[in-house]
């Protein structure tokens, strides 16, 4: 279990480095915004599933959390694409 948590932590760090490299690259503000947002919400879900214990939680709680992640991702990406 400890090893799995360390692997999750490493994935979170790698995801952070990837989003950093996207910010440093010349891919345009819209693409950067979308990719960085998707990576951030992926990290949020990973923390929820693996660290907060949602992986073994009752289904409604898992669904509520996933709904939150999905709604925030959709709203932020829509704003970035529609209003920028």
């Amino acid at each position, binding site marked *: 279990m400890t090893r799995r*948590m360390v692997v999750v932590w490493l994935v979170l760090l790698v995801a952070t480095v990837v989003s950093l490299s996207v910010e440093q690259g010349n891919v345009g503000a819209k693409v950067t915004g979308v990719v960085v*947002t998707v990576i951030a919400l992926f990290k949020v879900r990973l923390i929820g599933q693996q660290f*907060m214990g949602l992986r073994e939680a009752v*289904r409604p709680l898992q669904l509520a959390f996933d709904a939150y992640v999905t709604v925030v991702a959709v709203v932020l990406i829509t*704003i970035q694409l529609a209003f920028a």
Partner: protein
Amino acid sequence: MTAPATTDTGRIPGEVGIWVFVLGDMSVFALFFSTFAYSQARDGSDFTRAQKQLELPFGLLNTVLLLTSSLFVAIAVHRVLQGDPRRVRQLFVGALACGLCFLGVKALEWGQLFADGRSAGGTGGEGEMFNYYFMFTGIHALHVVIGCIVLSRLIALDPAQPRTDNQKVLVESGGIFWHMVDLLWVVLFALFYLTR
């Protein structure tokens, strides 16, 4: 406080009440995130010019600190639930140290911005960005302070004594709160430091 709730298809980590609070708090922050993203998209270059004045290394260091503290807390909580007392207190102390370092880095960052004449209450795209920055990161820092108090309470539990069901719920609920503090920062870091 009640014993951990379980069903045939899963369990409720911690207490039901902590999830009501956590999901409610996360929803408030979702409004913060959306408001910020809308203002950023509307104001354009003035807004992003202000974002570029934020020091990325500060944000990155704080991200690593909170992710690492979450790892410590996750391992400690798992061990408490399994009845394994090995290094539980040290893990919580490590998480608390990361939390305090986060606050130190944040104070340093704010201090530099204040010294450069940045503050809340400004106008225009640039001023609006710093209004959001100081308000949202300030509210988040308050969460870190509360989390540090919670971790201090968990550190104070006697590691030599077997945990009661109520103590296990307390430990797991405290851990869930700390992870929420971490995941809120993950989004704040992305919005303020990386989308510019």
